[in-house]
């Protein structure tokens, strides 16, 4: 447990970044308050995943600043950022397929590998929170289903007890049951006051998990607010399908929702 101060854990200011050709991010301003779950949504090409890459240090921004947990991080290499307490779960292929589940999770603690007591303690705690770590401890990670792998990936990133967790499309390729499990884990993370920033393709899923939402399009932030505010916003459809603002295709349909 950590005290939630209400301070900004993460601030991106005027960040531009890209690969080779043009800039994918065209001046991103983004903040995450400590203890919140923020979800970034937006159409493809909006730059959502690029934001995560900048935050985890895999991509250096061309301009702008990134501040996390009080420190400037836009010029730091990935392992420094890891040490500062920022962990990332990438979109896919993040496990070591020939290693067991237990070893995979253990590898998450690579940076604290010399503190064996701490390692054991963390492993224990994670095993309690995420059942699959104990249930399939000695199975090779390559034999797990998509949903199970995602759980192990999340478990692994908890080994360093991070302050901020970055999740890149956690729902990708998952069946509804696994989705429910992932949602549960995110909920428990939130309850233990870990700050979560996730990127989601599936808008309703993502905003459903979050306390706050950010809508990106064309490399910029277009909307921010609480998850409910953002989710109900009339501009959403327009942003996705390129219709004029105010035009909300599909809005008038028989709603089977409560």
């Amino acid at each position, binding site marked *: 447990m950590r005290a939630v101060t209400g301070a900004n854990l993460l601030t991106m200011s005027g960040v531009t970044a890209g690969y080779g050709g043009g800039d994918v991010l065209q001046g991103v301003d983004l903040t995450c308050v400590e203890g919140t779950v923020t979800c970034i949504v937006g159409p493809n090409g909006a730059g959502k995943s690029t934001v995560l890459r900048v935050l*985890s240090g895999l991509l250096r921004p061309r301009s702008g600043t990134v501040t996390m947990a009080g420190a400037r991080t836009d010029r730091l290499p*990935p*392992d420094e950022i*890891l*040490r500062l307490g920022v962990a*990332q779960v*990438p979109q*896919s*292929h*993040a*496990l*070591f*397929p*020939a*290693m067991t589940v237990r*070893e995979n999770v*253990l*590898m*998450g603690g*690579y*940076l604290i*590998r010399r503190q064996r007591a701490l390692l054991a303690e963390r492993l224990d705690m994670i095993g309690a929170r995420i059942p699959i770590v104990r249930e399939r401890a000695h199975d090779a990670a390559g034999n797990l289903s998509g949903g199970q792998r995602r759980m192990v990936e999340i478990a*692994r990133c908890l080994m360093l007890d991070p302050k901020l967790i970055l999740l890149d499309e956690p729902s*990708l*390729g998952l069946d509804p049951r696994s989705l429910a499990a992932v949602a549960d884990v995110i909920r428990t993370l939130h309850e233990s006051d870990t700050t979560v920033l996730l990127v989601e393709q599936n808008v309703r899923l993502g905003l459903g998990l979050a306390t706050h939402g950010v809508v990106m399009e064309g490399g910029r932030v277009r909307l921010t607010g609480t998850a409910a505010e953002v989710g109900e916003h009339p501009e959403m459809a327009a942003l996705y399908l390129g219709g004029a603002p105010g035009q909300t295709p599909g809005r008038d349909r028989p709603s089977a929702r409560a």
Partner: protein
Amino acid sequence: MAQLIQALVLGLLIGGVYALMASGLTLIFGVMHIINIAQGAFLIVVATFTWWLWRDTGIDPILASAVTAPLMFGLGWLLYRLVISRIRGQSPSMSVLLTFGIALVLEGILNVVAGNKFKSATPSYFADSFAVGPVHLPKTQVYGFLAAVVVLAGLYVVLTYTWTGRAIRAMSQNPSAAALVGVSPAGTAALAFALGSASAGVGGSILSVLYPFFPASHFDWISRLLGIVVLGGMGSLPGALVGALALGLAETLTATYASLRWSTLVFYLVIMVVLLLRPEGLFGARLREDGVAA
């Protein structure tokens, strides 16, 4: 019948030694995708050093690996840091050419320093055999095999239970995920190269007793090791083990029943057949195109 059993056992014994020698090569490839052509030269350098040590101090050649292994660990680490790491990220053919050059430099140095004659370390038990029923097993082969097994077991322990070993395995299996958890690519690569060199250290010491050698022998040896690794699958340690045993058996059986002269050709034949039928080897990963999921 006795002849068959003898051939089979001998084949396994020599296969074990081959496995040790090939393990370094496949380990290095698995971690950094470099085919270390100089691995054969490492063997001959160590063999020469062991021979010289034995000749001047009487130290048993196989036991001398206790000295040569850590020595090679250090030298391998230095070689990686100072020379090989400079071409990280360049095309694989460059690493082949570089290690090819290093092999030649080592051969040249050996030629100058140690001369071009065949050498062989011949400790007291050199000509003796263990008699197990109708089968005669030369003591050198048996001791060599035991040493190989010990070292391979040690390698297994290091890779499975130490953090260095885990980092090495992580990097071979998924380099980007390894970077994500904080594993340092350069440092781990250097350690993997050092480990691979250390295994050559033991392999070379054993070699000095089992086979006569001279500086240019390294090409013969690297060809065999490459055959083993191609058969087993580049980067796979279990593959190297299986491949080594299989080729050791094939070689010994050919020598026993066909002709000694043609026995080394078996390696090259196997390479050709494997590449024809299953290019990725027995345990290797099938090379795929850039398949983007969904």
